[in-house]
């Protein structure tokens, strides 16, 4: 057996890496934490909208947690974490000098090459990937408008983790910014007929974005969530129903074209749990 036979040519270049990285800075925004990791190899490979798989500290068996790259600068990557369940609660409590086992960057991010103007529409922790997106677009001189929606004042603290020139905020209870949702805000603010809509957030938000974009004739992309095991295409555990059948969020996504998520996409619609996006984002709704 020749254990050094090379894999096929298409696979000779790693797109991700895995290792232990140190937390070198930690900022709080209410209950949310922005962790900066010194991770030069991940930073070098990363693109906006990609994510990493983060192993939780400790020796018990737990699946790694998928987290978006909030932003990347030099040798640093930032993660913005919402304490939802036990795992993310442990992550927000990490401090400077703690280390994390992380694999990434993974997945297909937002295809920004042909974006001429961008409208970022996000809700809750769905805002996480958009600093990176905005940074890359700004560097290219592309105009960016962001509309972020939050539940209330507490959740709106998340906006503090962002530096985006045209950032608008709405809250469900009106306590901060406009009274309403990110999509209502986006509809109001607008971004011209050329704008690409880039969205991330809970299922109802993506649903509303999809409806609005299609009636407004806008094209765009949405980043989805799914429970993951491998994070790299092996287990087929993270699929969502699309017009092209079940696709894996971890490698075929997490970013999908909005029109891929339309109705009639499910290949097995009669089965329980089947359905269309935003049902495809059901795992998130389930949290």
């Amino acid at each position, binding site marked *: *057996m*020749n*254990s*050094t*036979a*090379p*894999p*096929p040519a*298409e*696979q*000779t*270049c*790693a*797109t*991700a*890496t*895995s290792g232990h990285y140190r937390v070198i800075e930690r900022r709080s925004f209410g209950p949310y934490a922005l962790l900066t990791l010194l991770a030069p190899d991940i930073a070098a490979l990363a693109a906006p909208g990609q994510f990493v*798989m983060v*192993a939780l500290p400790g020796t*018990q*068996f*737990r*699946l*790694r947690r998928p987290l978006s790259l909030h932003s990347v600068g030099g040798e640093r990557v930032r993660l913005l974490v919402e304490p939802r369940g036990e795992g993310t609660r442990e992550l927000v409590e990490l401090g400077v000098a703690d280390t994390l*086992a992380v*694999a990434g960057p*993974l997945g297909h991010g937002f295809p920004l090459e042909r974006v001429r103007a961008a409208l970022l529409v996000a809700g809750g922790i769905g805002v996480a990937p958009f600093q990176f997106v905005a940074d890359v677009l700004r560097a290219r001189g592309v105009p960016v408008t962001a509309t972020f929606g939050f539940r209330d004042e507490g959740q709106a603290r998340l906006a503090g983790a962002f530096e985006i020139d045209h950032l608008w905020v709405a809250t469900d209870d009106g306590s901060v910014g406009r009274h309403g949702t990110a999509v209502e805000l986006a509809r109001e603010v607008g971004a011209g007929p050329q704008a690409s809509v880039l969205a991330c957030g809970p299922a109802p938000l993506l649903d509303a974005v999809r409806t609005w974009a299609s009636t407004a004739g806008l094209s765009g992309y949405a980043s989805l969530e*799914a*429970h*993951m*095991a*491998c994070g*790299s*295409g*092996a*287990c*087929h*555990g*993270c*699929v*969502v*129903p699309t017009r092209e*059948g*079940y696709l894996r969020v971890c*490698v075929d996504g997490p970013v999908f074209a909005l029109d891929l998520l339309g109705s009639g996409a*499910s*290949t*097995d619609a009669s*089965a*329980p*749990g*089947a*359905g269309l996006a935003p049902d*495809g984002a*059901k*795992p998130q709704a*389930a*949290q």
Partner: protein
Amino acid sequence: MTQPGAPVPDLAVTLAGLRLEHPVLNASGTFDALETARHYGPEALAPFPFSAYVPKTVTLERRDGNPPPRLTETAAGMINAVGLQNPGIEAYLDDLPLLAFVPVPVLVNIGGRRPGDYLEVLRRVEERLAAGAAGSPQVAGYELNVSCPNVGRGGLAVGTEPGETEKLTAAARALTKRLLIVKLTPNVTDVVAVARAAAEAGADALSLVNTVRALVLDPQTLTPFLGNRTGGLSGPAIKPVALRMVWEVAGALDAPIIGMGGIACGRDVLEFVACGATAVAVGAANFSGPDAPRRIVAELRAELVGRGLPDLAAVRGRALV
């Protein structure tokens, strides 16, 4: 841990005539060599982390798999109901040359909705290999995943019935001279009866265990979380159950065993070997990251060094008392 001058322990094992560099295989459905190379680069596979490669289950027809959600975490484990999503045997065989770079024996894991389907898949693989497909990997044998719901018997898996297992194994045996492994389900009253049926019908080796049938609710809605409602439990939570079954079967039969269920470290490997396993497979632990298999093999080596043992034969069956 290595003493200066201490001999490096020999991890090689021979599984029903197949020599393996070490005892650690991947469990079907939990590791994909192509995807790993694609994401983590060729270094992640050179040297190849497993001593044999078991791709995920292939069926006769293409299967879309179960509706999502398909997996989540449980206490010290995970549950999945992927539903054997796969492109069907024809597309699978067309893609087989892509695995030519895999430097270890490949074991084709087969599933089916009826016994005839398994046999048809096996026949087609043999046919394609006999035609000498250029650049194919070294297909050393088969692993029959007999935990699949059998439509002909009201969804009862072949592997829950000794008689059905015997019939399928004997028929498969007649179709191939390659290694024939039957992968048993733990969801039975008497695993030894099923194991015996497979061994007596000509299986060269037995894999155990597949996942344990289980249910997880969505904590908000209190309805089944998985699209398929029930799923299969795996990971450290089930290790004591898997170990018991391996121990029972090894105590009753001579068939070589590939032990699996919750293996997460080198010590776990040693425990399965002590219970009579010849080789082992790592499943859920792959999800702790791409380094898991190498870490486990390194830990296994360190365990042997630390105990002053020259090889795995020194441990095999030690728990069968």
